[in-house]
């Protein structure tokens, strides 16, 4: 046995392994597989990141030399009323959309938690809007919410509720929320349906035997058991909502008090060509997302490990 091993080692030393052999060897194979990804990330992630950090300390209008201004851009950002308003508005939209989606989601998930005839058709139809381009949907809603000839107002008028100025400064932000909620509530519904169907039956039967009321069971049993899923919904939706852009472009284009965080960055960098200031704001937006993403990652990994 021993001699044989020695021979093998000798053989290995005698012949220099080829590049391919090294790359696919037990030791390095896992890194070999990662090479393309790391290259991609290096170019597409680190480069923009450092670029943004660099220019966030400079004043630059796409032409001429960039002037180093230190923390000026950041200071300006904190004193910029329009920016802070957009930030606050983004948080507001986040709160409205997520809470509405969760409430609708919970309600409908409870309704559809048992298996029923035609459930696949119901699910299939409900999931249809999820994968449609948000831009196209926002254009559609923009059209349907038109004051005079929009379908929504005409139906409201026919029922006797009267027409609504959907795109007035008072309502526009809520209309955008409505569009987003409309597209995404099926997501919460079916995540929660999946959760409800995987809950252990016997616990609920025991609660029933013990004479627990429906509400009590829901509050004390169902909700706590669903909470990991609810957290996943909240975090994922927060991440997607923070960079809401398409629905704005398709409807108000940032007018009538609907300017959100990413729209402000877009306008600063690509309409006013203020790259330095835009970079500073972009970094702010990034930090916010990374914070949420860190939480999301933990939750997702925990769910995957199960």
């Amino acid at each position, binding site marked *: 046995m021993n001699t044989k091993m020695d021979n093998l080692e000798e053989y290995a030393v005698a012949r220099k392994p080829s590049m391919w052999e090294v790359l696919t060897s037990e030791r390095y194979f896992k890194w070999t597989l990662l090479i393309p990804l790391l290259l991609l990330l290096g170019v597409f992630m680190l480069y923009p990141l450092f670029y943004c950090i660099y220019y966030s300390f400079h004043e630059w209008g796409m032409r001429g030399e960039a002037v180093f201004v230190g923390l000026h851009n950041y200071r300006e950002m904190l004193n910029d009323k329009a920016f802070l308003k957009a930030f606050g508005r983004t948080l507001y939209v986040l709160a409205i959309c997520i809470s509405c989606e969760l409430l609708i989601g919970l309600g409908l998930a409870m309704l559809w938690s048992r298996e029923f005839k035609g459930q696949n058709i119901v699910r299939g139809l409900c999931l249809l809007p999820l994968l449609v381009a948000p831009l196209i949907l926002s254009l559609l809603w923009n059209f349907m919410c038109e004051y005079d000839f929009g379908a929504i107002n005409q139906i409201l008028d026919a029922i006797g509720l009267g027409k609504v100025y959907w795109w007035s400064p008072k309502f526009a932000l809520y209309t955008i929320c409505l569009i987003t909620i409309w597209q995404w509530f099926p997501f919460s519904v079916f995540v929660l349906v999946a959760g409800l169907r995987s809950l252990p039956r016997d616990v609920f039967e025991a609660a029933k035997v013990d004479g627990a009321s429906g509400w009590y069971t829901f509050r004390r049993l169902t909700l706590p058991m669903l909470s990991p899923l609810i957290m996943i919904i909240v975090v994922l939706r927060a991440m997607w909502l923070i960079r809401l852009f398409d629905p704005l472009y398709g409807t108000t284009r940032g007018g009538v008090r609907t300017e959100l965080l990413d729209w402000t960055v877009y306008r600063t960098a690509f309409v006013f060509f203020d*790259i330095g200031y835009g970079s500073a704001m972009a970094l702010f937006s990034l930090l916010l997302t990374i914070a949420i993403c860190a939480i999301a990652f933990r939750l997702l990994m925990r769910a995957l490990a199960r």
Partner: protein
Amino acid sequence: MIRKVLFWLVTLIVLFIVIGPLVWIYLTAVKSPGDIFTTELKRLILFEPTLDNFKRLFTDYPYWYNLANTAIASVVSTAIVMIVSMLAAYSFARWNTGYGHLLFLTISTRMFPPVVAAIPFFMMYRTFGLLDTHVGIILLYIYFNTSFATFLLYGFFKEVPKELEQAAMIDGYGRMEVFRKVVFPLVGPGLAVTTVFCLIWSWNEFFYAFLFTRVSARTVTVLISSFWGSIEVQYGPMAAGAAITILPTLLAAWFMQRYIIRGLTFGAVKG
């Protein structure tokens, strides 16, 4: 009995709310301008269907050309993304390479607000003359799909039992062969689902396309967005274009319904 009626009543109302607007796209697409801008409720539903909007869309606008641009960008970027992320996801799933830190780094690129990458890339593209080219937009789509695909595939690869691979290695298979002959067939459905998702994300993409393409590489979402906000609003061609553009995504959603929730939650919830 009453419970059952109530149940179906609520279900039908929800379905109406969800499906109604989508149907509206198709109804609007076959309406004449007079029927689109009518204020009579009756004429909203009862109208004479016409194909004029489609005709105008095909003759007055480069619809097919832009649709082809979208298709090229989606297919090419997805093919490259799948190769890169398949290898990486396998490494992450099998050896936990980088102890989760690298995986986090990967997924956080997907979470980057698009504007963060848009500013530097715009400058870079301007220097290299990549603005409004297919290569440029394909690179961007690769960038934003890779991390998503890697994480989704990571979940699928995790489901392949390690023992199976070890058995194959004992039988004398090399690493490459194990991957090709044992793991690859087992994650087939996962690969298919991930591919379709990547295709759809690039198909629907608007922000980058809007900033980085103008004429020769303009994608279909940008074309459709241009119908609104110009001097006169072209609802007819807009609806006609939208009707064709969303058709593949609707079909995908219908046939993948079992996997949509899984995909959207990055594999965490198996719907």
